[in-house]
């Protein structure tokens, strides 16, 4: 045992930088694990953010994911480092060390590394946990006594230690299997194994291409609206088919199509016989056999990561973005009796004395129409899809407000540019406020609706439609903006009327107490709507989801990045002799760096490109097929997706840079 310890210590010292890498990656994983475990055991926090046990169940699900990931990641990197040292182990065996002695050496090293990583991981994880708590507290404006939360959660430490012990056992079993299954000969000559020469056939490579393209075409089919297969056959059937096509297509594409194309690209002599290509192209073809599996795994991993990130960003951003339609005013309610107005004004004045606050009362007249084709808003029974307002039923009809009211409401809501853009109306025109754009892309502009008052019928031509509703959907759907003259005419008739009071002002924003008091005053009226209040509700409902999924996405990134990094470094160390030859043949260091860059680039490029394309298509399908379309197809909606992709790209770039840097460092010692 004594010799084992001294040998292990000597090894650690000898290949220090090597182990530092291992130590760092293990520490990182333990940091994440510990931070997460602390969070899921933090009763103070969970009580605040979870009322229905949703967060707890999500935590336990993610913790299973996380543990599976840690085991996978540690076995992968352990195997990776083991392979790098096979020759050394083979020499120990040649010298007469028993395999059990070698295994205990490996285990002992793992214990050393895990101990080191545990210390750093627990410390960093505790700090990270503090950060998460502070972040959530600030985001949700929770009142939490942070002194109640211990820096080191003892239970979490205990759990992490147990888990690491388990991981060490798993690693030792895996190492043992490797050692006892390989002969002495294969240990010593492990690195020298030649790749099998592969021939790449036309058929599978074409199948790969066709399947991939077919999958993407099928995804785009969703744009055909009602006629698309997604609707006529079924969303989930086609979804499954598309996913299968793309999955299989990707596999064939990487393992057959790419090498096939590369191999045939040699026929373009002019391009092939160049300093870089003559090395990189054959290298790619030669190594694809052993690389294909890794590449496919990485591609699927990054496609999943990107898609989850982008869909999640979209799902979270969408309700936030649509609050401007759900509750356009800071506060708004239906006036049940005139006394309420004064009471509310008094209350608002208490909360924001002397601040600039606008009160706008809008009288909405409900008018029926007898035209042949009427927009869906006319007969909508409720604000569908809006979970909070779905229960409010409404009668059919247009709900008319005047041009002047519309204009002043928009101004009060700080939508000045939109207010400037609305066209002036004459007495035969109106503007229709849409609930959401028509699925087939049509527009009601030019349609003529006859409004039936009790005395006359007023024919109005739709001058245009808009998505900028001045009043929340709880209080008005099928809003029609008419000229002031027509409005007066309608007012004179005996049309049913509802009064809405819209209150706006910067001083009222983010004031939950005001909203609560107001709600009490109005006897919990469902017609009370508030912009900030809506946002607040969304944030407190979703932030924990966001946080936990964000956590998973980060994990995925670390996994993909590290695997890419380790793989490239290992490939390079294996072929170091090749670069020596190139050096002797007269390749400059610059040219060698270029070759390395290109090879590393291919490795990064394939997973990212595929992940990127898959993510775009998945997002499109998700957005078109599964999401409501309150906001139209404005590009602004894709901002979070773009941010998610940009973030991914920069993380990939960082790992790319790191990998190239380390590779060049290995080679520069020639």
């Amino acid at each position, binding site marked *: 045992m004594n010799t084992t310890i001294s040998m292990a210590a000597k090894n650690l010292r000898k290949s220090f930088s090597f182990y530092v890498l291992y130590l760092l990656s293990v520490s990182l994983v333990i940091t994440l694990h510990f931070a997460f475990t602390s969070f899921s055991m933090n009763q103070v926090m969970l009580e605040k953010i979870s009322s229905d046990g949703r967060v707890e169940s999500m935590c336990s699900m993610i913790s299973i994911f996380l543990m599976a990931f840690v085991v996978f990641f540690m076995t992968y990197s352990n195997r990776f480092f083991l392979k790098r040292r096979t020759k050394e182990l083979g020499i120990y065996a040649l010298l007469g060390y028993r395999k059990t002695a070698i295994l205990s050496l490996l285990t002992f090293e793992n214990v050393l590394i895990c101990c080191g990583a545990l210390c750093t991981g627990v410390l960093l994880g505790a700090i990270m946990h503090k950060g998460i708590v502070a972040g959530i507290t600030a985001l949700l404006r929770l009142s939490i006594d942070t002194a109640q939360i211990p820096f080191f959660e003892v239970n979490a430490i205990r759990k992490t230690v147990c888990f690491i012990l388990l991981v060490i056992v798993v690693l030792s079993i895996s190492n043992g299997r490797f050692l006892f299954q390989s002969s002495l000969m294969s240990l010593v000559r492990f690195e020298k194994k*030649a790749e099998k020469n592969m021939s790449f056939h036309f058929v599978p490579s074409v199948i790969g291409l066709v399947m991939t393209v077919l999958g993407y075409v099928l995804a785009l089919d969703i744009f055909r609206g009602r006629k698309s297969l997604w609707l006529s056959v079924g969303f989930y059937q086609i979804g499954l088919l598309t996913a299968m096509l793309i999955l299989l297509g990707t596999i064939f594409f990487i393992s057959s199509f790419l090498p096939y194309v590369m191999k045939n690209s040699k026929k373009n002599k002019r391009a092939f016989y160049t*300093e870089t290509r*003559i090395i990189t192209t054959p290298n790619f073809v*030669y190594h694809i056999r052993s690389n294909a599996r890794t590449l496919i795994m990485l591609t699927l991993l990054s496609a999943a990561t990107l898609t989850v990130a982008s869909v999640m960003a979209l799902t979270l951003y969408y309700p936030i973005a649509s609050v401007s339609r759900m509750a356009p005013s800071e506060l708004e309610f239906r006036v049940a009796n005139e006394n309420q107005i004064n009471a509310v004004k008094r209350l608002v004045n208490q909360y924001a004395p002397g601040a600039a606050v606008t009160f706008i009362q809008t009288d909405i007249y409900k008018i029926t129409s007898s035209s042949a084709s009427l927009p869906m808003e006319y007969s909508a029974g409720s604000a569908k899809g809006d979970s909070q307002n779905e229960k409010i039923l409404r009668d059919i009809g247009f709900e008319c407000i005047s041009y002047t009211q519309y204009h002043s409401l928009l101004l009060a809501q700080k939508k000045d540019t939109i207010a400037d853009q609305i066209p002036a109306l004459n007495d035969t025109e109106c503007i229709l406020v849409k609930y959401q754009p028509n699925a087939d892309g049509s527009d009601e502009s030019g349609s003529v609706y006859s409004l039936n008052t009790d005395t006359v019928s007023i024919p109005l031509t739709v001058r245009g439609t808009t998505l900028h509703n001045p009043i929340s959907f709880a209080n008005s759907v099928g809003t029609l903006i008419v000229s002031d003259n027509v409005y007066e005419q309608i007012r004179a008739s005996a049309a049913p009327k509802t009064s809405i009071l819209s209150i706006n002002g910067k001083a009222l924003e983010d004031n939950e107490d005001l909203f609560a008091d107001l709600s009490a005053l109005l006897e919990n009226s469902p017609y009370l709507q508030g912009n900030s209040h809506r946002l607040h509700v969304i944030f407190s409902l979703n932030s924990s989801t966001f946080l936990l999924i964000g956590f998973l996405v980060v994990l995925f990134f670390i996994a993909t990045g590290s695997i890419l990094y380790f793989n490239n470094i290992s490939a390079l160390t294996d072929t170091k002799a090749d670069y020596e030859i*190139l050096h*002797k043949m*007269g390749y*400059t*260091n610059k040219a060698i760096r270029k070759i390395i860059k290109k090879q590393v680039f291919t490795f990064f490029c394939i997973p990212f490109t595929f992940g990127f394309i898959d993510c775009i298509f998945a997002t499109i399908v998700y957005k078109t097929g599964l999401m409501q379309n309150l906001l139209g197809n404005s590009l602004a909606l894709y901002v979070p997706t773009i941010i998610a992709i940009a973030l991914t790209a920069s993380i990939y770039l960082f790992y790319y840079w790191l990998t190239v840097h380390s590779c060049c460092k290995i080679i520069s010692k020639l």
Partner: protein
Amino acid sequence: MNALLRAKEVTKTYEKAQRPSLNKISFCVADGEFIGIMGASGSGKTTLLNVLSTIDTPTSGEIWINGINLKQLDNASAADFRKDHLGFIFQEYFLLDSLTIRENISVPLTLQKLPPKKIETMVQNLAKRFDISSQLDKYPSELSGGQRQRASAARAIVKQPSILFADEPTGALDSSSATELLHALQEANQELHTTILMVTHDAYAASFAGRILIFKDGNIIREIFRNNASRRDFYESIAAEVAKLDTERQV
């Protein structure tokens, strides 16, 4: 005599070594010469080749090849110099595993930016001379040791370097493969006028050369000239010289 390579008082002392591995070595090589370098293990032969071929730098002394002083070359121009003037064959056939034999031989020509058509005909012709025409589209791992070594010789010669450095090219070969390779080198020397510096332990291999330098402890201790002798006679005299060295050592 038209000197292609001139070494003057070249010394190489590795870091932390007590004795120099090359000790003030001076010699000249004429254009078109075939030189054999012999000597005991550790006597400095590989070190000499490395220093002559710009892979390593001497501690002191000067080397000229083609009138160019190697001292004046920086990293990039040294690489260019190797690309344009030098060829290498090593004891372990240093072929690139992932390239076919044809691609391997094409690399130096590609590096010189020759047109693809010309590259292909040159490779084809040389392959015929080295008797590996039928192996061109195989990978190195599919060839025998002798074929691989001839392929790497072809790769070294194909760009018609001013000097070809060979470090124990026959070390890993059986006698008949060794003979084939040596004949190929001799042909290149006689027909293409390639200057060759070949390190070898083997008197038989050395007998293909025109002049032998014998090393001991970083010094050239003897020179043997062929002087129009037949290869057999030359072999005898080299063998005798090597035997004498061995007896000297025993004494």
